[in-house]
C-alpha cells in the first residue's frame, strides 16, 4: 500500500497501522496506551492524526493504512487535540512526580515533556481512590491510574489471571481488582507483570528497602544476601547499562559495599533444586507417581495454580523454590557451620520477582525455626539502594561470591530464563539415569520466547516428553492440554512471567519482549562462561549432602527443602 505521511511517500503491507507506517517513514507519533507487546487498545487518543476524507481524527495506533491515503500528523487540529488530551490526563493525575517510584521513568511525564505542555488549563482535581497495600508484593495507587488499560491487557490476555479490570464509568472509571476488593482478597498471582505494563506509577512493588537499611545498620545482626540467577543479567539496567549486560562480579562487589556480611548466591540452591527435583522426577517416573512433574520455582505460578487449577496441585514438585531452600539452609546449615546464632541471621533475597515477597511471607516458610527469608527486594529496589549509597558501577572491580553458599554451575545460571530449569534438570537427569556423560549440554529446543516449547528426550531408552511454558496465559494453555490428555507429559516447566525470571515483575523498567530477548542472551553467556555446567558436579552440593543433608529426598531434605500447597478461591 502506498500512502503519504506529512507528504513523505511510504509503502507498507496492507493491514499495517498508520503508526507503524509513520515509524517506517521516520515520522514520530506520540503514544501512551500503545505497547509494543500488546494488541491495539486505541483508548488514550494521544496518537490521533488527520486522515484526508475522514470526518474525525483517527488513532494512528489502530487505524489501518489504505492505498493512496493522505496522513498528516502535525496540523493545528492534531496538536490541539494531543495537548488537550494530555492536559486532561495531567489535570486528574497527582502532582507528586518527585516522590513517585516512576519519577523519570514515567511515560506520562515524558509525553508531557515531549509535547511541550507547560501549563494545564483545567483545574487540578485528583482522582480519589484509596491506595491498596494489602499484599506484601504490590502497591496499587488508582489515583495515579490513567486508565490506559495496558495492565488490563497484560493481566487478562498475557497472564490469563483476570485480576484487573476497569470498574465504574465515565470520569470515575478506575482499574481495580474484582469487586473493587483489595488485591490480597482476590485471585491474583502477584506476578507483577502489571507493573511493566503501567506507564505511570499506579502499580509498583511493595518497597522494603527500609527494613534492609535497618538490618545493615544493626551491628548485632548478621545480614546475608542471596541473588537470584536472573539478577546479574538485568541489574545493570538500573545503573543505566544497556539490556543484556552481565554484572555478576560488580553486583557482588556492590553488595559488599552496602554492608552485607556475606554475599551468597541463589544459584547454589538452584543447583540443589536440580538434585532434589531431578530425584523427585526419577522417583515418580520409576514408582508410578503423579505425572507430569511440574516445576515449583516460580511463586507467581504457584499462586496461580493454587487459585485456578487446584486439581493439578499433586503434579507440582514438592521442592521449595531456590529462594526458600536458601533461607532454610542459611539459618541451619550455614549458621551451624559459621557458628552464628540463627536468631541473629537476617536473610535478604534479591529477586526478579514481586511474588517472591509473598512466598517468603507464606506461613509455612519457617522450616529453620525462624522466618527463613526475612526480606525480599526486587532488582528495582536494589537499584535504588545502590543509587542512594553512591555505588560507582564504572569503577567497581569484579568480586566473587562467598563460600559455601555462593558456589554454583551454569545449570543454575540458566534458571533465569524460560526453559532453564528444564534444561538444567535434563543435564543432570540424563547423567544420573544413563550413567553416561552428556556430550551436548545445550537443549536449544526448550530455549527462547516461543510460547510453549516441547521436546522428547531419550534417557537411554526411556523417552520422556517435556514441555515448557512461560507467562501464565501460555501456562493455562499448556495445563488445558495436559488436562485434555492428548499427550503424555513427564516433566513440565512453568514460569509465571514471559521470558522467565529475566522478565519478572520486579525487573527494571522497562521490560518489553525485545528487552527480554537481550537478557536471555546474557543468561546463556553466563552459562557458557561457567567452568561447571551441571548441577550435580557442583562441589558445594556434594559437600552439603555429605555434611548435612544426607541424600536427595532424604529426611533432612524433606524437612528443610520441600513444602506443600494450598488450594485457593478462584475469585
Amino acid at each position, binding site marked *: 500500500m502506498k500512502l503519504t505521511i506529512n507528504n513523505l511517500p511510504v509503502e507498507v503491507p496492507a493491514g499495517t497501522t498508520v503508526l507503524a507506517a509513520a515509524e517506517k517513514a521516520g515520522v514520530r507519533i506520540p503514544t501512551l496506551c500503545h505497547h509494543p507487546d500488546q494488541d491495539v487498545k486505541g483508548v488514550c*487518543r*494521544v496518537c490521533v492524526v488527520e486522515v484526508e476524507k475522514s470526518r474525525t*481524527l483517527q488513532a494512528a495506533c489502530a487505524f489501518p493504512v489504505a492505498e493512496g491515503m493522505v496522513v498528516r500528523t502535525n496540523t493545528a487540529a492534531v496538536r490541539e487535540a494531543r495537548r488537550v488530551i494530555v492536559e486532561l490526563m495531567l489535570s486528574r493525575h497527582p502532582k507528586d512526580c518527585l516522590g513517585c517510584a516512576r519519577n523519570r521513568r514515567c511515560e506520562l511525564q515524558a509525553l508531557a515533556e515531549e509535547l511541550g505542555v507547560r501549563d494545564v488549563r483545567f483545574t487540578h482535581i485528583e482522582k480519589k481512590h484509596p491506595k491498596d497495600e494489602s499484599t506484601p508484593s504490590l502497591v496499587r495507587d488508582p489515583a495515579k491510574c490513567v486508565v490506559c488499560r495496558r495492565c488490563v491487557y497484560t493481566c487478562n490476555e498475557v497472564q490469563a489471571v483476570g485480576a484487573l479490570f476497569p470498574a465504574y464509568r465515565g470520569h470515575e472509571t478506575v482499574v481495580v481488582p474484582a469487586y473493587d476488593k483489595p488485591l490480597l482478597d482476590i485471585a491474583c498471582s502477584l506476578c507483577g507483570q502489571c507493573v511493566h505494563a503501567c506507564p505511570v506509577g499506579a502499580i509498583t512493588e511493595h518497597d522494603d528497602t527500609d527494613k534492609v537499611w535497618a538490618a545493615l545498620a544493626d551491628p548485632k545482626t548478621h545480614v546475608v544476601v542471596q541473588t537470584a540467577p536472573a539478577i546479574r543479567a538485568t541489574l545493570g539496567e538500573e545503573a543505566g547499562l544497556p539490556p543484556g549486560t552481565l554484572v555478576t562480579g560488580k553486583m557482588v562487589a556492590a553488595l559488599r559495599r552496602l554492608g552485607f556480611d556475606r554475599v551468597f548466591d541463589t544459584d547454589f540452591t538452584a543447583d540443589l533444586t536440580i538434585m532434589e527435583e531431578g530425584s523427585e522426577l526419577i522417583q515418580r517416573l520409576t514408582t508410578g507417581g503423579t505425572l507430569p512433574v511440574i516445576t515449583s520455582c516460580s511463586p507467581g505460578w504457584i499462586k496461580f495454580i493454587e487459585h485456578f487449577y487446584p486439581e493439578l496441585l499433586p503434579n507440582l514438585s514438592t521442592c521449595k523454590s531456590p529462594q526458600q531452600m536458601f533461607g532454610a539452609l542459611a539459618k541451619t546449615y550455614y549458621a551451624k557451620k559459621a557458628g552464628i546464632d540463627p536468631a541473629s541471621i537476617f536473610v535478604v533475597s534479591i529477586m526478579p520477582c514481586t511474588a517472591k515477597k509473598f512466598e517468603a511471607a507464606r506461613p509455612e516458610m519457617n522450616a529453620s525455626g525462624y522466618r527463613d527469608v526475612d526480606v525480599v527486594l526486587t532488582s528495582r529496589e536494589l537499584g535504588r539502594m545502590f543509587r542512594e549509597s553512591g555505588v560507582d558501577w564504572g569503577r567497581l572491580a569484579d568480586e566473587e561470591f562467598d563460600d559455601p553458599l555462593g558456589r554454583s554451575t551454569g545449570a543454575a545460571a540458566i534458571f533465569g530464563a524460560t526453559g532453564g530449569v528444564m534444561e538444567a534438570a535434563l543435564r543432570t537427569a540424563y547423567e544420573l539415569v544413563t550413567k553416561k556423560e552428556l556430550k551436548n549440554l545445550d537443549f536449544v529446543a526448550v530455549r527462547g520466547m516461543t510460547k510453549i516449547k516441547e521436546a522428547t528426550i531419550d534417557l537411554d531408552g526411556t523417552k520422556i516428553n517435556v514441555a515448557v511454558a512461560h507467562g501464565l496465559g501460555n501456562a493455562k494453555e499448556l495445563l488445558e492440554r495436559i488436562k485434555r490428555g492428548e499427550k503424555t507429559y513427564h516433566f513440565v516447566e512453568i514460569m509465571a512471567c514471559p521470558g522467565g525470571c529475566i522478565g519478572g515483575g520486579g525487573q527494571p523498567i522497562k521490560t518489553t519482549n525485545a528487552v527480554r530477548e537481550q537478557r536471555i542472551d546474557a543468561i546463556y553467556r553466563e552459562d557458557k562462561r561457567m567452568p561447571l555446567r551441571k548441577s550435580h558436579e557442583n562441589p558445594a552440593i556434594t559437600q552439603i549432602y555429605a555434611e548435612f543433608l544426607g541424600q536427595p529426598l532424604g529426611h533432612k531434605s524433606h524437612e528443610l527443602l520441600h513444602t506443600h500447597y494450598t488450594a485457593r478461591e478462584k475469585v
Partner: protein
Amino acid sequence: MRLFRAHVLVCAGTNCSLKSNKAVQDRLVREVERRGLADEIKVVETGCFGLCEQGPTVVVYPEGVLYCRVTPDDVPELVEEHLLKGRRLDRLLYREEVPAAGAAVSAGPKAFQTVPEMNFFRGQVRIVLRNCGIIDPESIEEYIANGGYEALGKAITAMTPAAVVEEVKASGLRGRGGAGFPAGLKWEFAAKAKGDTKYIVCNADEGEPGTFKDRLILEGDPHAIIEGMALAAYAIGATQGYVYIRGEYGLSIDRLQKAINRAKEMKLLGRGIFGSKFDFDIEIRTGAGAYICGEETALFESLEGGRGEPRLKPPYPTDSGLFGKPTAINNVETLASVAQIIANGAKWYRGFGTERSPGTKVFTLTGDIVNEGLIEVPMGITLREIIFGIGGGVPNGRSFKMAQSGGTSGGCLPAALLDVPMDYDELAKAGAALGSGALLIMDDTHCIVDIARVFARFFMHESCGKCVPCREGTFRLHEFVENATKGKATPQDLQTVHALARTMALASLCPLGQAAPVPLLSTLQYFRDEYDQHINEKRCPTGTCRGLATPAKALSAAGKGA
C-alpha cells in the same frame, strides 16, 4: 369471525399504563357485559395511540371518536351515552388550542369530534405506526388481518435475497437510530461479507432521554419488528437474530416475547419459513440501561456478556460484529419500515419525504408542548409544522425558546430556525441532528446555560470511560457549565472549553464522545448572549440560576419570584 357494531380501543402504551388505563379497560369490559352488549361491542387493548399527554385515551370506532383523560368513573357514562344512545360525550372530547396562522398565541380551544379531523393526526403519515393504536399488539391474527407477514411471504417465495436488498436500497431508507446510514447499503455489505454465520441485531436500547418511539413501536406493533428482522435476515443470509432491549422496557419485552412465541407457533419463525429453506429465529437480550449500549459495537460487547464499551472501527459490524461475525444492526424504527417497503415497493416509499431522506420519521414530542406524545410525519416537514401544527404549540401562553432535536446529543434550535426542514442533511447543516427523533421543546422560562448543564451532566454520567477525550472531557464540560450557572466561569474558561469541545468532537473513540459537546456548542452558537450574561455579568436573565443576579421582570414572568 364475529362482527361487532363498535370497537372500543383502549391505549395500552406505557404512558397510558402509568395513568390507570387498565382500570379503564376493565371497567369498560364490565360495563359492556353488564348492559348485555358483549356480542355487539368489542373492547380492544392497543398499542400507543400517540397522544400520550392526553391519556388514557379511548377511541370508539367506526366513527373514530377520541376520548381523552378517561377515568374508570367516566366509563358508565361513556357507554351509556356513546354506545347505547349514540351521542358523543362532549366533556371527554379532545380539545386543541388552535393558533392563529404561524403565531405562538392561541386563539382558544376547539373540541374535535373524530380522529381524522384533528390537527394532531392530519399532519401525520403513519407507515411505521400504521398499526399502533389500531390493532391488539398481542394478536398475531390482527397483525395478519391488516396485511402483516405478506411482505415476508412475498420476499421468501418470490424474491431473491439480493432483490430484497435492492428494493430497500432503492427506497432510500436511512437508519432511524440516529446516524442515518442507508439501510440497504448496510444489508448489502453484510450480505457480501465472507462468513457462514451472520447475525441480524435489532437495536432497541433506546437510551436518548425524551425518546420513546422504539418502546411504543415494540409495544404497539411487535410483529412489524419480527417481520422486518426476518426480511433483513433473509436478505443478508442470517439465521439468528437478536433484539437488544433495555431492561426497563418491561412491556416491550413482554409483548415482543409473546409475539415471537406466536410467530413460532404459526411457523413464521423457525425452520423452513413459508415452506422454503429459510430458517430464522429471534432471541431477546436485555440491557441494563447504559446509554452507551445504544452504540452498536458497545451493544455487541454487552450482548456478548462484556462491559458495555464501544469497539474500534474498522472493522465495521458488517464485517465483524456480534461474536466477530458479519452483522447487520438496525434500529427498531428502521426494521419496522421494511415490511411496508417490500409490500408496497421502493417507489411508493419514495413518495414520502425528501429526495435524500425519503419516507417518514417518528418523533417523540416532549417538554413545553401541548401534545406531548408520538407522531409520524414525512421527512422534510418543518420544525414549525411539527411544533405548532401537530404539536399544538407551546402551552400556558409562553413563547417558544428552543427545540432540541435528536436527543441529548442533538443540537438546540432557536426560533429563527423554526422553518428548517426536518431531514438528515438539513438538520446537520443547522448544527443539529435528526438523531433518534426526540424533540424537546422549551419555552422562554428556561435558562439556556442551565439546560446545557443538565445535558452535560447526562454525558458525564453516561460516558463509558474508555477513551480520554470523552471520559475526562465530559467531566470538564460539566464543570464549565456548572461554574457558569454559579457565576464562576471566566472568559478564559470559555476559550478552553472550545478547544476541549473541538478535541472531543475530533478525537473521541465513538459517537458518544464526539457528540457530547454538541448541545453546548449549539447553545453557544445560538444563545451566546445568555452565556455572556452568565459569564461576564454574573446574571441569569430567566432567574433559573440561583445566586446570580436576576432582572425583576424575568422573576415575575417566570413565576419563580419570592
